[in-house]
């Protein structure tokens, strides 16, 4: 294929060299270095590869999905709420994966989140899994709070809470996850690029903003919290809203 003295290196070996797949001690290496013809072919193949990459990019469209499919599981320990399980999962030294109840709660949060998105492609997938596990009847499973996640868009996320109950308690914190998450019961959710919209929420609502992005939280048109460089700040306007606003600065 590539006799160092009499034959030139073939395209396969040249491409392997370009792709970092050629062994360090492959005999083609010294040949390419000393052969003008093979060096020229190497440069030409490298140019072809770049052209192909450029041409294929024309076919790309934005990735449409933002929510992962999830497996629904029945909560076996009523004292473990889904939110508690989700928080525990991020703490060093705790292994919620070893706790059936905590894991079940965490997964249930995500399952409910998937169901809460109108028209979400996740919904049918979850339905199929539910049917597989429960024979088409999920039974008396408490869905717990719904959690919805979205990736930042251009380094920023926005959480918009609308038509909220006056008794609403909003907790905002920064977390070391790539997505922004909102958890609430009996609310309607909507997701757009870098934005989660929640309406009709009552009781406790938790907003988790990714530390790597900037974030804003609005309640009925009033900005109540802002996150920047991993630090979340309660805004003065938060005093003017009926709901209780809690900002956990520790993240």
């Amino acid at each position, binding site marked *: 294929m590539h006799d160092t003295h009499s034959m030139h290196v073939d395209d396969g070996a040249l491409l392997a060299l370009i*792709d970092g797949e050629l062994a360090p001690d492959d005999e083609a290496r010294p040949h390419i270095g000393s052969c003008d013809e093979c060096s020229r072919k190497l440069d030409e193949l490298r140019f072809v590869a770049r052209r192909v*990459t450029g041409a294929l990019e024309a076919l790309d469209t934005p990735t449409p999905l933002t929510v992962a499919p*999830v497996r629904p599981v029945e909560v076996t320990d009523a004292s473990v709420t889904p939110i508690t399980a989700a928080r525990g999962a991020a703490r060093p030294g705790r292994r919620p*994966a070893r706790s059936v109840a905590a894991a079940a709660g965490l997964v249930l949060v995500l399952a409910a989140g998937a169901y809460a998105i109108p028209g979400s492609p996740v919904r049918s997938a979850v339905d199929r899994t539910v049917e597989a596990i429960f024979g088409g009847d999920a039974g008396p499973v408490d869905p717990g709070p719904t959690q919805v996640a979205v990736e930042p868009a251009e380094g920023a996320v926005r959480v918009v809470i609308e038509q909220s109950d006056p008794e609403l308690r909003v907790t905002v914190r920064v977390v070391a996850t790539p997505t922004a998450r909102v958890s609430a019961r009996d609310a309607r959710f909507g997701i757009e690029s870098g934005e989660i919209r929640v309406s009709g929420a009552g009781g406790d609502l938790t907003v988790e903003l990714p530390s790597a992005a900037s974030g804003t939280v609005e309640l009925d048109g009033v900005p109540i919290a802002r996150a920047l460089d991993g630090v979340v700040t309660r805004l003065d306007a938060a005093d003017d809203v009926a709901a209780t606003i809690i900002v956990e600065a520790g993240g």
Partner: protein
Amino acid sequence: MALARVVDWRDVDFEAAFHSHQESLFRYVNRLVGDPDLASDVVQESFVRLLDNPLPDNEVRRWLFTVATNLVRDNARMKTRRQRLLTERYERSDLASDPAEIPDEAALKSERIAAARAALEQLTDRDRKMLLMREEGFRYSEIAEVIDVAPGSVGTLLARALRRFADAVDPAHIDEEE
């Protein structure tokens, strides 16, 4: 391919896997089938199947691409639908070539899409998948495993596919600035 392992799904961070691989998998499938909606379905189904087949982190990506590749292969309707979409896109491309109706930039973009799609269609199914997996940064050994070819032949097959693709694409439609 025997990838099944006994891994407790509770130990697998599905959401992290989703966010790590979704974009690359979607780009691969979308380029393969030429239909974002269909690609979205395939990606979603691949991740749903991952729920039932929890794997160590270092195996997840290759497994997802294997499943997605098989889903595309096994779904006969995809080919029919792809052909229909291609026809539609070529027709749109013909329309787009009329500068009186569509601005130059949009027309050029349509032509680039049509040219790239036509060039891909000229490759064999195997070469198309290999080429697209290379674009996603897979190692030759992984490509060989997913596509089921001899590892030693991957470089030669890829080089041939690259040249065929490049020859089929009108050079005027390729960005050469990268």
